[in-house]
């Protein structure tokens, strides 16, 4: 087997299909053998044999015609056989390789599907996410604050990535609240619980990276002196339907109380036809932030110092661009 022979047979194999022998080379061989037999018969005829006898003699001298045809066919196809089998093996190998790639690509998903356990929003199983956020909201006199918005944001670090979920509830008539199954006591988590109530100070509590069950949150919300924000165009026209929610405040001890943007939707209020909106969660003189969304614009945070009670702060879209 030399390279020249291999290349020659490869060229033949590529040039003609496997069955070409019967039509091309087969025709040539038939002509060649026909010439042989006719010449042989002719020579026999010269020795005095009849046409029929001379043909028989030529055939007898020639041997088994089928064997000869088969032998020549074998010679012709022997080279192609190599390439044909190489072709088949390569094709099979490719098919297996593609199949293997397919199985490999789909197997992790299949395993994942098989092993998929219903997962809570914490990223852990429901059984592991049995931590409840409980508490109560009262005034300074101990009176229950009902219908206060309680917004909880829970951060967890399950396998595969960080999760942050927000939950919202309102306090009952006795000022108590309960948000069930929101953190995994056996794993690390963080919580931020904010309370936003009408005429009460925005108050929040942050619990940093902890495990175990949380103690009940006891909120005591002091009353506030409401002020108003009026939204106007740069030309002084009132801007209706500006979305606002109290975002943050810093108390006298320097603690920051805030509402995460995530989960703030229930406490969003909108300016009226006069462009005005009452803000009732801050004390005069406090440095606070309100989140504002002018119609058709993105949310932005506006910081301000709270004016005296019942005063009005004017905001325009062009000022304090975020």
């Amino acid at each position, binding site marked *: 087997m030399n390279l020249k022979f291999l290349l020659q047979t490869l060229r033949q194999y590529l040039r003609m299909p496997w069955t070409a022998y019967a039509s091309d080379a087969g025709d*040539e061989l038939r002509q060649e053998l026909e010439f*042989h037999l006719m*010449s042989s018969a002719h020579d026999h005829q010269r020795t005095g044999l009849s046409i029929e006898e001379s043909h028989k003699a030529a055939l007898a001298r020639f041997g088994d015609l089928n064997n000869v045809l088969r032998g020549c066919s074998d010679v012709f196809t022997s080279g192609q056989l190599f390439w044909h089998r190489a072709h088949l093996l390569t094709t099979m190998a490719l098919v297996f390789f593609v199949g293997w790639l397919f199985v490999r690509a789909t197997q992790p998903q299949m395993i994942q599907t098989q092993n998929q356990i219903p997962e809570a929003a914490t990223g852990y199983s429901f059984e592991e996410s049995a931590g409840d956020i409980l508490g109560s909201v009262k005034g300074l006199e101990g009176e229950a604050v009902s219908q206060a918005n309680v917004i909880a944001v829970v951060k967890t670090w399950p396998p595969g990535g960080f999760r942050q979920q927000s939950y919202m509830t309102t306090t009952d008539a006795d000022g108590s609240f309960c948000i069930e199954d929101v953190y995994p006591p056996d794993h690390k988590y963080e919580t931020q619980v904010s309370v936003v109530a009408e005429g009460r100070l925005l108050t929040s509590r942050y619990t940093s990276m902890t495990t175990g069950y949380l103690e009940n949150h006891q909120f005591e919300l002091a009353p506030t002196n409401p002020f108003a924000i009026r939204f106007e165009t740069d030309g002084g026209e009132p801007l209706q339907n500006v979305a606002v929610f109290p975002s943050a405040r810093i108390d006298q001890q320097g603690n920051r109380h805030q509402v995460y943007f995530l989960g703030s939707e229930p406490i969003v209020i909108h300016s009226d036809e006069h462009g005005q909106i009452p803000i009732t969660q801050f004390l005069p003189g406090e440095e606070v932030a309100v989140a504002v969304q002018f119609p058709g614009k993105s949310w932005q945070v506006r910081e301000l110092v709270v004016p005296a009670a019942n005063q009005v702060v004017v905001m325009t879209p062009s000022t304090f661009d975020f």
Partner: protein
Amino acid sequence: MTPRLSWGKLVWIVMAGKTNKKSDLLQGTLDMLILKSLIGGARHGYGVAKWIQATTEDALRIEEGSLYPALHRMQKQGWLSSEWGLSDSNRKAKYYKLTRTGRAQLKREVSSWEQMVSAIGLVLNAKMNEVTQ
């Protein structure tokens, strides 16, 4: 010693479905006769058969059909080339011609044949006491 089958040979047998028949004595002899018959010029298959028959004075009567697989194989190996032409009887015939590789091959075949004949001659001419020693 058990004959060892090399990986290359095994792959060739599996892929091409062939064993190496080069060492086959009969095939080698037939190849040599065909190559020799073409040394004087191109001949068609029937011409080759007739030449061998005439040259051996009918002593070697080969089955004429067996020439053709051999001719085709030798052509594929590059020892012969062929072309269609007209015979003496004005019929279309395929003529085979010896190539340079074919000539070299003939030399090798003849040399190998002579070595074998010489070896067999040595055996046949050996005296009995030499053989038994």
